């Protein structure tokens, strides 16, 4: 089981803040985003288990993923 937490307006794409998913062993984060309907252009920072990763990062069972929209610092 993989848990995925969405932040700010990304929640609008799924209507859920937190999603639990069973994943195929070789799945990349970008595939997962596509599956749940979050446009790639809207995605900014992604963390996996508290570390920054790209959309190409592979997901394994037990991972905790957080997705933040593309935001700007002040």
């Amino acid at each position, binding site marked *: 089981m993989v848990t995925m937490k969405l932040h*700010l307006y990304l929640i609008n794409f799924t209507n859920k803040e937190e999603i639990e998913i069973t994943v195929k062993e070789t799945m990349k984060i970008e595939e997962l985003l596509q599956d749940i309907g979050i446009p790639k252009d809207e995605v900014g920072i992604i963390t996996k288990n*508290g570390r920054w990763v790209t959309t190409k990062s592979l997901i394994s069972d037990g991972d905790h993923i957080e997705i933040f929209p593309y935001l700007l*610092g*002040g």
Partner: protein
Amino acid sequence: MHKVVRVDMSVKDIQWEEKEEYNLLGGRALTSRITYDEVKADCDPLGRESKLVIAPGLLAGTNASSASRLSVGGKSPLTNGIKEANSGGIAGAKLARCGVKAIVVQGKSFDERTYILKIDREGANLIVHKDLESLGTYDTVAKLRRIYGEKVGILCVGPSGERGLRASAIALSDPFGELKFAARGGMGAVMGSKGLKAIVVDDEGMQTMEYYDKESFTKTAREFNKQLVSDPKTKDVYQKFGTSGIVKAVNAMGALPTNNFRFGKCEFADEISGEKLYETISTRGGKGKTGIPCMTGCVIQCSNIYPDIDGENIVSTLQYENIALLGSNLGINNLDTVARLNREVNDIGLDAIEAGAALGVALDQAIGAFGDEEICLALLNEIRRDTILGRVLGNGASITGQVLGGDRIPVAKGQGFPGYDPRALKGNGVTYAMSTMGADHTAGNCFGARNEIDPLGKEKQGNLSKDTQIKMATLDSLGFCIFARVPLFKDPTILANLVNALLGSGFTKEDIWDIGFETISLEREFNIAAGISPAQDKLPEFCYYEELGSIKSVFDLSEEEMKKAIIE
């Protein structure tokens, strides 16, 4: 032609000068150019040879959204190099409409120390205002608005600026009399050292802007404004959360300064997040409000008023940097306390980042416990009361660390780190160490750079910082807000078209960035002449040795990588 107003505080003389060579320069490009042309690089930044240069962005006063910021520059008493800080507020547009290209404040007043410079349709005048002596910024602005009318634009310093404390900022009034800050680099100390307490700008009867091609300008501006409005982030993120929308993201990537940059994550990030800020403002109501423009005509409207439990105004605007430096960096776990500290910092007239960094260093040296609101307020009160400890803290993080001891002083080139730990966002580490501005995220913030580049990686950071620095210096020169950058970076033709339609110039989407490049090149030359050598292109030692929290990262970029960010 817009003119340069030269104010000599030593002899109280004011001259209006035509400077054709400055025609295509504005904002940071102009403050840095005048500093380069006129200020001796080896002068005492707080002495009589130093100058304070104030210039509206090139597009200020026009109807392009988010483009009327005002730059203040000169030699920084913190970095001892060239500095520019810019801010929203209404003075930028009003100065442009009064036909002012720049104000150069030089010399030093040795009689009275609380002069105000009044600029209006009659010209420019210096007036002594003894009633403003040692007055906080809030009362100063309120009083000046009562005397000169609510529509005037104001710049002023607080008591810390009057005393020449190096962490001092310059406050600017917004359309509602709330305050914004040209905060970084201690430019408030430079202004105060001149004996200039405030500048009041009244554009009544002066509201004409000359356009080379007004029709074309209005068309481009309208399309650009429309793009900003139609971006869902404007309404869903910026108007609700302002800059504070990034608190949780910065925390998640481990870059949120916590307890004097000892940790990059804090367990109470949710409590000081943008989401919490919006929820609190919405629930408490009263004077609390989000979605406020800080410049007339801005469609982004990211300012807020943070209210107390009774709905009374504590501070405007509570924003990311202030939450990071006065919040998590001091171990403060709630927004009410951050807001109260922010109010005090603003009123004394300090840069919230520098003040937060200085307090963090003090707490790290066991002057008090992290998370203790009372001690933080007491330390700020030391600055207000002008005690010896207060003078130490008010001179910024570097001096505080040197006096109180410790080897964890989060500064680069004498200036306190902003709200991104450079070990977790290495591109910003490059900017802090290599840019002409010292540790200043606004000089080239790699957060938000779409993060295709690993913020913890050893590669591509130099070029990322360099590219961002050039682009930011360009926006700083045109008067644009950092929040307007998405459509502008995507299609720089907008920038070129706006400038060309205003001034009849021939910029293209390729060479518009030369404005930033050339500005930074001049700044670098000034800094070298001021004695800033490559030996100062460094971060403090702890960044190279002390692993940051759970991500276990140190700042480990090669010299070669760092040098890629040099702009000359």
